[in-house]
């Protein structure tokens, strides 16, 4: 099995303003995604929903070697990572196909192989 990461970029502000009923619909899409993965022989080994990027802190090292910590995300874009799954799978094409289920609740979905395997 190869480990893959399913990354979910999206518009956080729109999500924050989303009424509860619509959120429940999106969570139901996620549950269906997880169920379909299992039915088709993939395995979810981890994942997380992320807090709003305004809560983020970024660490970097300046040219003079000084370390700084700032608030807010590293990329100032409308689309931010909102969450991700770790999935073990033997079949990337089928995994991508199952991700179409998530497309009913998420704008864009990026699938990447993990190199070291999930720890």
């Amino acid at each position: 099995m190869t480990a893959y990461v399913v990354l979910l970029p999206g518009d956080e502000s729109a999500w924050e303003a989303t009424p509860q009923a619509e959120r429940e619909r999106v969570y139901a899409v996620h549950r269906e995604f997880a169920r379909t993965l299992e039915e088709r022989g993939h395995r979810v080994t981890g994942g997380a929903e992320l807090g709003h990027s305004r809560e983020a802190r970024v660490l970097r090292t300046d040219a003079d070697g000084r370390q700084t910590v700032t608030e807010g995300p590293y990329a100032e874009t409308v689309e931010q990572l909102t969450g991700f799954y770790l999935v073990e799978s033997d079949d990337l094409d089928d995994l991508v196909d199952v991700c179409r289920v998530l497309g009913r609740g998420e704008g864009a979905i990026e699938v990447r192989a993990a190199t070291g395997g999930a720890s």
Partner: protein
Amino acid sequence: MPQYVVFAIDADEDAWEAASDEVKDQTYAADERFGKLLEERGAKIVGGADLSHSREARLLTKDAAGGAVVTEGPYAETVEQVSGFFIVEAPDYDVVVEAAKLMLEGHTRLEIRPRPVREES
């Protein structure tokens, strides 16, 4: 205990691919020091993954009719890409930030985000 996700963001994926084992080991050693300091401060790593090069990514988006479109490559066409992440359980934010400073030796930037407090479904 609150959970946080620590993303490693690296300026040059191609350079990392071409790096010698010695250089890679320095980065892995910095990552290990991060884990060790967390443990000393009552925190721990509960998950994570190394990501492969973004050229291996597949992206799903929607067309005008709502159908899925699958393309190759990452969603963000930037030089800096997320190269991996850790999920950390820690007593507070500052513990994570302090420990993450140790990883700057091996990574261009680190972004830390709290996980929202919500019942697991």
